[in-house]
């Protein structure tokens, strides 16, 4: 076993060990925290959640590290990353990173994390690896980056109050699998970032249909068209699924065609609504750009809600809503899976 302990620096303390036990990792993390607390750093060691991370095999370490660095700025969590290693042993790195506060009203904060790299057999019991490391009494959120499932996913899910996925990690023909993966989890605990990104769109749609005339048109709608850039296809489909579910329509068919996603829904009065997800009219536009509901010659057109573009923080903001109920997500997902013929897959 090789162990290295770095000198305590103002910004970072770290320990690394190979072929170690989970309890030893927990002791090292506690020791780092104790040592850290002895130094006056002007920060408060406040944590609001345990963040478990089980990246799929398609997520490289650098990308994940960059995303986690962004998260640390918003969520003072204890982060525990569990990855699969080639060797049948447990290697671990624990670290504390600090931001030092300067000036009144600018409090510093620190963030501790553990990276566990374990062989496949241990990963199948990943819950036992992370239990000693969790901060007792805090909510636990499991984040599943990437499109492929980690072996640690299911055991860690048993510990999680919320499970964060991002269907938008997939696109094109891979989207049905992403939706199916989310549906296979306990959906009431799933926080799909692709859905959470729709927060403003959903407010926008709900505000528009406060108008009785708009609701009357909804009952006669025969076409829904969404304009969206490619990375937001998952969100756009969820928006379409939500509208269909809440309007009382059943999506009977949904497929990826050369021009984009197309489908057909059945209204409660047996009328047909065609669904179309198309690229933006202006190529440079990002996100979901426009939504139009048609009823014969009548039309309701909604443009993207004006709001601050801040993609770097979008994921962190979404994670911040882990404890917010998402009542529309399950019916939206179910409507999409109906259309994709994936409901019982």
């Amino acid at each position, binding site marked *: 076993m090789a162990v290295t302990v770095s000198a305590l620096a103002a910004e970072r303390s770290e320990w690394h060990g190979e072929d170690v036990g989970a309890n030893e990792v927990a002791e090292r993390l506690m020791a780092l925290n104790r040592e850290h607390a002895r130094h006056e750093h002007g*920060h*408060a060691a*406040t944590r*609001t959640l345990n963040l478990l991370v089980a990246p799929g095999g398609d997520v490289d370490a650098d990308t994940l590290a960059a995303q986690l660095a962004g998260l640390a*700025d*918003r*969520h*003072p969590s204890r982060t525990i990353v569990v990855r699969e290693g080639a060797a049948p042993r447990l290697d671990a790195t624990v670290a504390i990173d600090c931001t030092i*506060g300067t000036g*009144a*009203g*600018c*409090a*510093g*904060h620190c963030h501790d994390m553990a990276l566990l790299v374990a062989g496949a057999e241990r990963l199948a019991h990943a819950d036992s690896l992370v239990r000693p490391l969790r901060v007792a009494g805090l909510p636990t959120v499991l984040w599943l980056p990437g499109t492929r499932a980690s072996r640690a996913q299911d055991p860690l899910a048993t510990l999680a109050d919320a499970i964060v996925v991002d269907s938008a990690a997939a696109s094109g023909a891979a989207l049905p699998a992403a939706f199916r993966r989310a549906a296979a989890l306990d959906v009431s605990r799933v926080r799909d970032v692709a859905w959470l990104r729709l*927060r*403003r769109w*959903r*407010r*926008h*749609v*709900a*505000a*528009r*249909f*406060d*108008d*009785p*005339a*708009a*609701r*009357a*048109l*909804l*009952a006669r709608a025969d076409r829904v068209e969404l304009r969206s850039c490619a990375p937001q296809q998952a969100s756009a489909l969820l928006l379409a699924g*939500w*509208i269909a579910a*809440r*309007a*009382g329509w059943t999506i009977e068919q949904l497929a990826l065609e050369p021009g984009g996603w197309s489908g057909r829904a059945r209204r409660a009065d047996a009328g047909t609504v065609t669904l179309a997800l198309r690229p933006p009219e202006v190529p440079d536009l990002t996100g979901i750009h426009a939504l139009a509901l048609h009823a014969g*010659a*009548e*039309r*309701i*057109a909604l443009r993207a*809600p*004006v*709001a*601050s*573009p801040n993609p770097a923080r979008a994921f962190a*903001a979404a994670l*911040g809503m882990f404890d*917010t109920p998402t*009542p*529309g997500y399950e019916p939206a997902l179910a409507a999409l899976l109906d259309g994709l013929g994936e409901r019982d897959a």
Partner: protein
Amino acid sequence: MSTAQAPVTAPANPFAQDVDERLPPPSTLVLFGATGDLAARKLLPAIYDLLADGRLPERFRLLAVVRNHDEASFRAHARDAIDAHARRPLDDRLWEALEPRIGVVTGTYGDPALYASLASRLDEGDREDGEPSQRLFYLAISPAFFADTARSLCEAGLGRGADPPTRLLIEKPFGHDLATARELNAAIDESFEERQVFRIDHYLGKETVQNLLVLRFGNGIFEPLWNRTAIDHVQITVAEDLGIGHRAGYYDRAGALRDVIQNHALQLLSLVAMEPPASFDADLVRDEKAKALHAVRPLDPASDAVRGQYTAGWIAGEQVSGYRDEEDVPAGSRTDTYAALRVEIDNWRWAGVPFYLRTGKRLPLRATEIAIVFRPVPHQPFRSLDAPPPPNELVISVQPNEGATLQIAAKTPGTALAVRPVQMDFQYGTSFLRESPEAYERLLHDALLGDATLFTRADEVEAAWQVVDPVLAAWANEGAPPAEPGVGEPQPYAAGSAGPAAADALLAADGRAWRSL
């Protein structure tokens, strides 16, 4: 969209159930005083930040009432204000969305033509949008114009009974004393119904102030202790390290008691002292706050109040002038730059628990906090201790570091029994790293939604004036020789000190001391 064939009735909005926060209905905000300091520093940036957060309705217009601007120059002014003061950097895409929503109406407040022109512009906007929008009138102007402006709006059909609905937003001071507050409320009541009037005390928009309600009523551990059985006393401090800047004209007429205690400090007191409301309905919350203020025992200015005025001193290594040497302050001014009160609340919950309130300019630091000081343990079992453990304190910090700290006693390590106070900290800045919205964002958004919970009702304003009126009357006795210590002449305190010695004596008389600043 054509609505000609729409049926009269329609099913309930099926999408409303899935949104965490409703958008306000189509709205036009009419800003009086649009080129003033409040608009530039707070209101225009708040509108921009609400837009950036996606919290403004799709149909939103801002109409600025101006005298010397045209649309282009006011838009440039607004852009500069947003660039300088918004929470977020000015983003061209957002500005392009906001700019066309900004218009101007030109005129002077006393001119009836202004209001006719305003009404016409509002109707014109509705015609352009194809639907009516609610109208909010924000009077960011001198309080001297509140009543007349409200009357003029009403005469133009924009007050009581207006259709589309209207609201009036005004900001303290609401009167100069109880009598003038009643006059103002009565004058406004002639033009707007109380439910249309949103009186802003921006402290109520602060995150920590709202958190005080959650802390009290959302945590099972506190409310059972929140009474005379467990609490020894309460201290409410609103300390400022700054002087009066260029506000001598206003401040010398107002003083610390009017400027801070009558509104901010008594609002904080009412939130600490109120009974649990049945629900967080605006009127139920405000009923309870008003009841707490009505339960305040009439103050004796001689024994319950201290006023001070700063003299020259040092703050943060800089020498600063005394109040009477500040720009535009009249020689021999007796204005209070410091005020402290000892307040008793005569009800079952708080009988015998004093609330000490203090505010001052040129104190050592800027801090607004509420300290709940608990009673000591009834029996002291640690006989070897030289002194009993310090009392528990719950300190709710409103600014600059929003959060709460619970002070408890802990044994220091070692073989000897020694006890030391330690602090359990909660800070918004570390627990929730996301930025809190500015108070004005919250308040403007609530006003757009018609939620009056965080706004002050007329009876609350009058109840607060009722508390301070006897002290104001005593302190107004200028020219008369001091009849008793503390009455008539403000007590001097050096800038950078924690206030006049008489304020310390106010608590010392009860065997207590202020928390250190």
